[in-house]
Each structure stands twice: as C-alpha cells, then as structure tokens.
C-alpha cells in the first residue's frame, strides 16, 4: 500500500482536516504577511501614490491579496472553532461547526474579491 494511503488511513476525517487547514493557513500567514508588507513598502517607496494605486489594480496583485484575505479569514474562523470546541459545552455537531467555519471564511474571501474587482 502506498505511503500516502497509509498516512491518510487514520487521518481522513473532518476534525483532522480542520486542524490541518488551521495549521497550514497559520504557516501561510507567517510566510506571506511579511512578504506582503515588504512589497507594499517597496512599492510605496518607488512610485508616487498614483502609480502605486494603479499597481494595486493589477489582477495578479489582486489575486495575491485575495489569497491573503482568505488565509486570514480561514485562520480566524478556524481559531473561533477551536475556542468554541474548548469553551462551549461539547456538541455532537462538531462537523457542522467545522463546515460553518469554512463557509464563513470562504464567504469573506469572495466578498473581498467582489469588492476589489
């Protein structure tokens, strides 16, 4: 049996995905937020404000920013889920909570994209 199916065998269930997504979005934020700030800083330094604003109109920049907003939303809602899990009474609807967290995060990301375009 392949290593992948062996690794997935005991982990393929919603609570584990939720953990994984939360961990990966956290790592993604840690990597890309500094990069995002760096690029912003450089762009503002080099160009006039008008030039900078037209730069943020580029599709690629918009896409990257949307990605960052999605990461942020995913990580935030994932964190709220963990707080709910640990501080509210246990509910057997943990899967529903996971789904709500993902849904809200996705909606926030799409809304941003909509407003940005």
């Amino acid at each position, binding site marked *: 049996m392949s290593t992948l199916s062996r690794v997935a065998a*005991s982990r393929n269930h919603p609570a584990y995905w939720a953990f994984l997504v939360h961990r990966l979005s956290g790592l993604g934020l840690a990597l890309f937020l500094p990069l995002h700030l760096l690029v912003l800083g450089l762009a503002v330094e080099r160009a006039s404000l008008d030039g900078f604003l037209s730069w943020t109109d580029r599709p690629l920049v918009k896409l990257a920013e949307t990605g960052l907003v999605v990461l942020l939303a995913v990580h935030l809602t994932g964190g709220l889920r963990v707080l709910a899990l640990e501080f509210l009474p246990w509910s057997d609807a943990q899967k529903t909570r996971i789904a709500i967290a993902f849904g809200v995060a996705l909606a926030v990301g799409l809304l941003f994209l909509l407003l940005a375009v």
Partner: protein
Amino acid sequence: MQSSAAQPSASTELGELTVSVWRGAADGRLESFRVPHRTSQTVLDVVTWIQRHLDPTLTYRFACRVGMCGSCAMMVNGAPRWTCRTHVSRVAKDGHLELRPLRNLPVVKDLAADMTEFFDKWRDAYGRFSPTPTADGDFHRVDPESAERKAASAGIECIGCAVCYAACDVVSWNPDYLGPAALNRAWTLINDVRDADRSGHLAAVADDAGCHACHSQGSCTKHCPNGLNPSMAITGLKKSVLGALLRGDL
C-alpha cells in the same frame, strides 16, 4: 427455492487474500502471505491462520477474541483497529491487507507492540482511583442523572487497547504527551464524586505533556472501537484546569 448447496456456509471460501505482515523488530520488513478469504472472517482469524498453517514463529497478541481485553490491536491497512472484531470484508482493499504493529509504540517482534509506555502514562496521569475513607461514614450518593456521573459513565468502558494512542499525531510529535486514553481515564476520575483527590487528578494533567498538548484532531474519537470520545474528555479537562487556575485551586 435455491438448493442448500448454493447457500454460503460458515466456511465458504471467497477467494484468496494477499496479506503483508510486519516481521521482526523496528528494523524489520513486510512479508507476504496468501490466505483463504472466508465469510465472517476477522483480521485476527487471518493472523491466526498464518501462524497455524504457514509460519508458527509469527508473534502477535490476543486473549478474549470478543472485544473485551484490548490486546489484539494492530495497524490494518494504515489505520489502528481491534482485529478480533474487524471483519476482513470491511477493510481489505482489492483482496489485500497490510498488518503492522500499533503505531507510536516500540515493536517487540512482528505484530506485538511494547505497551509499557502506554500504561506508564496512565500512572503518570494519576489514573488511579483515590478512595474516600467512608468506613464509618455514610455511603456516597451517586445520582445517575447528574452531569458529573454522565460524564464519568461516558468514559469508563475503555478496554486499554491503545488504538486511540496509535491514531494520535500529537503522541508521535511529543513522546511525553500522556495521550488520549490516560487523559480520558483522568476525566472519569475527576467526575467521580467518590474520588477523594480530584484536584490532584487535575494537577497531574495540567502541564505541557497533559491535556493542553492536544490539538483536538479527533483521531482518537474517530478510531476508538468502543465509541468513547477522548477528544471530548480532553476539552473537559482543559476547561476544568482553566477553571481551577482562575479559582486559585491549582
């Protein structure tokens, strides 16, 4: 009506299974066996068949064969399971089974894992009942409908099989982590009104290797063959530890 010859009997052969079995200690390897596939055959039946018919040196562990003793757990196609109550037809993939000793524990030989650290952690989690001296006093009154008794009752049917322990990634990442079964045990004692040292139980699970190490991945709950919910027990411990800290009891 069909003739009785067409009806499957208890020993009907359904073809052949190829079974890869871990042999040796940590530096061992997989060895392949061909085993007849029968109806209602359990994974433990397969292992026993190999030992009786193909290789008497195969080492594995079992006792009750009915899901009571907790000794027969192994990794079956990558997931931890109690093998005496796992039907081959439910888990075989294209007639193939891969059997390894339980994850997160040292291997003794073949399919037998060394359970020492698993049970040592029950001790470290203070998983022992602390009786109240009631010989001259009254009996404890335990209300079966109280929230505490319900929480305790939900966790007491653990058979100590270490399936949850093998499923948990935090155990692999942090070898000191007490693990789901020991923490679940602590939770049942904290909810037992007869226990005399409930704050002692809380203190035993309050540090880094205790309940706060859990990431709520829920693999323990997903795999526990007895349907227990160690993940929920651990969130209960987290809340109780925080409450005790805020009250200054810890």
